[in-house]
């Protein structure tokens, strides 16, 4: 069932991704940048929040916010941006969460990011609650009363929390002080949780591209200026308006509390939390699937490249248990997500997940050359199974051969050389867009290896005119087809390469004697 839900979510996501790519291009697709947009909005919230804090008074909450709202030059629009940034942060976090679920990126070592992301979402909701209550207008009052009722349904408090708001006594300043403290402390705590959230990633991207960052902040500011915030009436426990101006993003649960018992809501919340925490286990691959990378110690040369490339800091150098004087790479299976990027980084093909090492890829390619019509000069598309793999038949129908990769980040450059020298008309590497790589850095490293000499680099003897790298997500068959046709047209003008007879690329390096060592 979870797989079905995952698949259904992924189908919706692919369609949305493709539409947004057409509109924004993959570089600025906000769906790809949902995580970084959330962080950017958190930064906006902190900056605008510090400014607003200067004018807020816990002794007169509504009056002080009213004064801020009345100041069109330095108050109203700042408050508007603060509020709208919180809405945008909630949307961005939700999209990010859905994306990670749909792409099955919650299991194994990624469970830390999944759980901490859930905590971030919960803290964001609580923090927003404190923010709206701070204003102490009619919406803040509704939130406070509903929140009090929810808390009173728990058997933790010696005195009912909700009584603070019923009007028996004025709401004490201590409450507003505590509320303000939480509103400041929780976002700061989010910084710590964010650090945990990205702690297992080698090179976390925290902010979106500048154009998207400043564009979204600019638009929010513009809207806050053009459509200024209005102040709702002050909270009064003795006056219950029939409607209140509400922020539905954070007040969505209020109508529910009015209709069902609080204990039932707690049961639903508890069930939701358990289900959320269970997702990493439910989406875990079956036994033998996605096994962590292993190292062939005989082949490892301590070059360090796999350690640099690994997006999850899962590889370290350790002492050897043989008599060779070098260190050897070791994979930490508790951090390895089996992305296979190390397979493409290792020149001697000594590391990678089972059945996806460079040597395995060459064996697959050798079989592929035997069974496919590459000698007729067809383009071979090396496509990511999560992207181009979804429309492989379309590409084959357009005259290409298709060899599927788990992720193009796995691609060992020798495969490209093998295909071109083996008779392929050309090699088109069809990668998922870089910000949409399930393994974070696959497309980037592949481009570096094929064009910029990063190990394991494509040898200079391979003519790059017969190679092209293009990006296409799973919902972008048209774009992939266009890239294929353009490449085919380009190859038309090129001299076809003759397949090399008895082509062999060594899959195992010849051991080289170190100084003073006998081989």
């Amino acid at each position, binding site marked *: 069932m979870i797989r079905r839900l995952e698949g259904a979510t992924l189908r919706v996501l692919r369609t949305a991704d493709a539409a947004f790519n057409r509109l924004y291009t993959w570089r600025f697709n906000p769906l790809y940048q949902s995580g970084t947009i959330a962080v950017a909005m958190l930064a906006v919230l902190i900056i605008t929040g510090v400014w607003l804090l200067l004018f807020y008074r816990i002794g007169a909450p509504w009056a002080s916010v009213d004064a801020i709202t009345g100041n069109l030059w330095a108050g109203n629009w700042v408050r508007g941006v603060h509020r709208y940034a919180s809405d945008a942060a909630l949307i961005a976090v939700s999209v990010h969460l859905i994306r990670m679920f749909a792409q099955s990126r919650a299991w194994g070592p990624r469970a830390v990011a999944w759980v901490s992301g859930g905590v971030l979402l919960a803290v964001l909701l609580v923090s927003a609650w404190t923010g709206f209550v701070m204003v102490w207008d009619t*919406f803040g009052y509704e939130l406070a009363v509903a929140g009090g009722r929810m808390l009173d349904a728990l058997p933790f408090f010696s*005195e009912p929390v909700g*009584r603070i708001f*019923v009007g028996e006594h*004025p709401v004490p300043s201590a409450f507003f002080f505590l509320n303000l403290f939480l509103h400041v402390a929780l976002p700061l705590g989010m910084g710590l949780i964010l650090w945990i959230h990205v702690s297992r990633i080698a090179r976390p991207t925290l902010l979106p591209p500048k154009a998207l960052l400043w564009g*979204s902040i600019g638009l929010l500011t513009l*809207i806050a200026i053009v459509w200024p915030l209005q102040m709702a009436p002050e909270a009064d426990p003795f006056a*219950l308006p029939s409607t209140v101006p509400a922020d*539905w993003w954070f007040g969505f649960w209020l109508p529910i509390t009015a209709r069902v018992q609080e204990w039932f809501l707690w049961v639903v919340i508890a069930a939701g939390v358990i289900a959320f925490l269970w997702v990493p286990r439910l989406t875990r691959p079956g036994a033998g699937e996605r096994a962590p990378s292993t190292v062939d110690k005989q082949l490892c040369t301590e070059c360090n490249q796999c350690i640099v490339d690994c997006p999850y800091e899962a590889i370290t150098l350790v002492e050897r248990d043989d008599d060779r004087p070098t260190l050897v790479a070791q994979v930490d299976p508790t951090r390895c997500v089996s992305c296979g990027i190390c397979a493409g980084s290792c020149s001697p093909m000594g590391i990678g997940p089972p059945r996806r090492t460079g040597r395995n890829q060459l064996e697959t390619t050798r079989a592929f050359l035997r069974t496919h019509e590459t000698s007729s000069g067809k383009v071979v598309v090396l496509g990511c199974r999560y992207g181009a793999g979804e429309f492989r038949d379309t590409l084959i129908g357009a005259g290409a051969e298709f060899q599927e990769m788990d992720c193009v980040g796995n691609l060992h450059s020798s495969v490209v050389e093998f295909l071109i020298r083996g008779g392929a008309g050309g090699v088109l590497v069809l990668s998922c867009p870089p910000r949409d790589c399930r393994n974070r850095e696959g497309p980037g490293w592949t481009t570096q290896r094929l064009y910029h000499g990063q190990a394991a680099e494509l040898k200079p003897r391979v003519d790059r005119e017969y190679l092209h790298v293009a990006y296409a997500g799973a919902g972008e068959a048209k774009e992939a087809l266009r890239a294929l046709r353009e490449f085919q047209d380009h190859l038309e003008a090129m001299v076809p390469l003759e397949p090399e007879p008895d082509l062999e690329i060594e899959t195992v390096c010849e051991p080289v004697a170190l100084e003073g060592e006998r081989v």
Partner: protein
Amino acid sequence: MKPTRRVVALIVSTVFLLGMVGLSRVSMSTGAGAAGVLRLSWGLLPERVEECRTLSEEELASRPAHMRQAEVCEGTTLPYRLTVRIDGRLRVDELMVGGGARNDRRVYVLREFNLPPGDHPISVSYVIEDSTLVAGETDGAPPDERFAPRTLNWSGVLSFAPGKVVMITFDQERRQLRPRRSLPQP
């Protein structure tokens, strides 16, 4: 990115953000408004009844030195019965005990009734329930002012306006129930 594409992207982004902002400014129905509300709210300590006895010489001698207290008391707190009549109809008849594991914390009363606008005869009573007290004793003052009065009654006709709350609460100075229509003045 082509300029036309940039403009389209900007327009779509603006529309999306306007939608987001719009949803953050939409009115929400509270379910209140047409009706008036009667709210009962107070929190009072339940009366504590103790039975004390003096320990005999033998009992004292059998206890460790640090526990040799001449008089020992065992206490319990008493429940209270809350009854509410609105327009002559019994709406609440409930026995209430103190909070906490030993029921020695305050009894919190918080009830709300939606009533049509207009005048309504209301009768509220909050009376101690103790089988050992005979008639008349329930009207007596508790042994300590920290505790709730043994009997609290309020009855009268209250006028309710749409969306307005009338609260019956405990007046600490007069030690009786009183209706209120606004926050107490500091």
